């Protein structure tokens, strides 16, 4: 009973999400929701290592691309269904995270962030240069299994639920307290007898697992990958950070909120306000409207950059973390204008 009471809102959201494909038949919105759910998994993974454990990961794309390439290479080189990439991609992401963590966890704070950035770049260069394996910039093609988006939707939903429940469970366990203590004061944690390197490693491996799963799902769903897409610094690594901080660092549901907001922002710019701007320019026939449309559709990276700046300055703990603060401010403003 207490379980139901405590989790009423998330359970309602979950029911809505399960019913979503029947309510909205439009495949475009289904596609967007699949992306949102995929980002929930990546954001949760990022949140575990960066938000809870305090080791900021700038290279989520390294693990994402690892999962994505595993799935694609299974099909292209070994002729095994790319769906096996989900378990195997996750395993290989962890296999990448392990030596990487072993090398880089002796570094702290911003230096760790730099190494993860370097890992991202190294992985991208390797995927580009090693043409005999990865086809380089040509990319790899995977035939989609289903024509309809609904099966993908439920797989992505399962992944998102798994990641949120998983993170919640981990953070309730003994490990969770270790993680937070490492974030708050690593030396103090060490002196209390916590093996900080081991638990940072556990945290990183769990993150890599979730992000790698999302990468493998991406390959299966999108059907095409190349190094520029899956190892992208802006579109994957920075996006993962944004999903984390917009939603709320170190909150269980933060990445879910963040994923929804960020995919919406990305899509608003990419499609120029869901087609609103092109429609307006056609309807009104104003020449400057067309220019605005062009600029808006080009501005999605700019919007990311501005969002980073604004969110860090004014909403450092995200929508979930600063919720009370946010509502108070908005309500206050309303009262002022009335």
């Amino acid at each position, binding site marked *: 009973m207490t379980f139901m009471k405590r989790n009423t809102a998330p359970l309602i959201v979950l029911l809505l999400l399960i019913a979503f494909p029947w309510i909205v038949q439009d495949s475009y919105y289904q596609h967007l929701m699949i992306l949102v759910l995929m980002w929930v998994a990546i954001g949760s993974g990022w949140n575990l290592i960066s938000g809870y454990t305090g080791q900021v990961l700038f290279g989520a794309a390294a693990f994402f691309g690892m999962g994505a390439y595993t799935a694609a290479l299974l099909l292209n080189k070994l002729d095994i269904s790319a769906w096996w990439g989900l378990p195997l991609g996750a395993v290989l992401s962890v296999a990448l995270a392990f030596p990487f963590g072993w090398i880089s966890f002796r570094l702290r704070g911003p230096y760790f962030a730099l190494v993860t950035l370097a890992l991202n770049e190294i992985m991208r260069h390797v995927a580009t240069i090693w043409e005999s394996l990865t086809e380089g910039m040509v990319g790899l093609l995977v035939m989609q299994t289903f024509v309809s988006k609904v099966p993908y939707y439920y797989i992505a939903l399962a992944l998102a639920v798994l990641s949120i429940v998983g993170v919640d469970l981990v953070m309730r366990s003994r490990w969770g307290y270790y993680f937070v203590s490492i974030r708050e004061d690593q030396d103090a944690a060490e002196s209390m007898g916590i093996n900080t390197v081991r638990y940072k490693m556990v945290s990183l491996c769990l993150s890599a697992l979730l992000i790698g799963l999302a990468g493998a799902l991406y390959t299966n769903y999108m059907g095409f990958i190349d190094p520029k897409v899956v190892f992208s610094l802006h579109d994957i690594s920075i996006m993962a950070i944004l999903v984390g901080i917009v939603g709320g660092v170190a909150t269980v549901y933060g990445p879910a909120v963040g994923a929804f907001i960020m995919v919406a922002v990305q899509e608003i710019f990419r499609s120029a306000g869901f087609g609103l701007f092109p429609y307006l320019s056609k309807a009104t026939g104003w020449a400057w409207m067309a220019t605005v449309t062009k600029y808006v559709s080009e501005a999605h990276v700019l919007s990311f*950059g501005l969002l980073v*700046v604004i969110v860090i300055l004014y909403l450092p703990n995200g929508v979930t973390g600063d919720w009370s603060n946010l509502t108070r401010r908005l309500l206050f403003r309303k009262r002022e204008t009335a």
Partner: protein
Amino acid sequence: MEVFLQTLVAGILKGGLYALIGIGMTLIMGVMGIINLAHGQMMMVAMYVTYVFFHYMGLDPYITLLISMPALFLLGVLIQKFLLNPLMKVESILPENQVLMTVGIGMVLTEVARFIFTSNYLSVKTSYSTAAWHWGGISFSVALCIAFVFACLLTVILFWFLIKTDLGRSIRAVSQDGEAAQLMGINSERIKVITMGIGAGLVAAAGTLLLPIYYLFPDIGGPFTRRAFIITILGGLGSTVGAILGGVSLGLAEAFGSTYVGMEYEDLIGMMIFVLVLLFLPGGFKRLTKV
């Protein structure tokens, strides 16, 4: 042998410019304790400033140094004053939000440049861009040599500034111990603002000097930011002498790598050095001299 010497010369000359980039980064690193991941993007802005003055007013890039350096100094000051200093007062769970902020700034700078100048490649073609001196079968690019001399000159001036002037001493004091410096009556916020300006000015010089022999497009910032942090890690954090050594070694490594291994490995080599240094020489060259 000739190929070897030629590569050596090219590497050292390029290394001089890299040193200039690295010194700015390491100064910021030392005083603020943050890694400025918008460093290459600031350089990109300086290159566009140079390009605009060359293209529309026909100013020689070396004269433009007098414009691009103050302009970027101002940009650095504004960024530090209005974006980074206020962050000290923001309470956040995430400890690295200043580094993240610089990433955001870098993205904004790149995209604004793309809005104004589009993604097309631009270049500044001067009479000396392709000229070279020959000496014993080895060619010295005129523009690179001039850039190298300028880089050395600026470094010397910077050292004089840091060692002899009052402001320079304050910068070094904040870099060594911010709190103690504040107790001694140094306005550390102001010092941070000035340091960011100087760092930006130095990288602006590097960009302007590089432009006659390089090309320019909005995404050029990323690779140079990467080089800057490799140099900083290589030289030892916060060490100006280390940054010079790091810059020259990176220049050499890239030159030899692209000659003997292959052009496409140029970027990868820097990254490998970065990881190797972290593995076997954490602390960089600075540590070699101290221990």
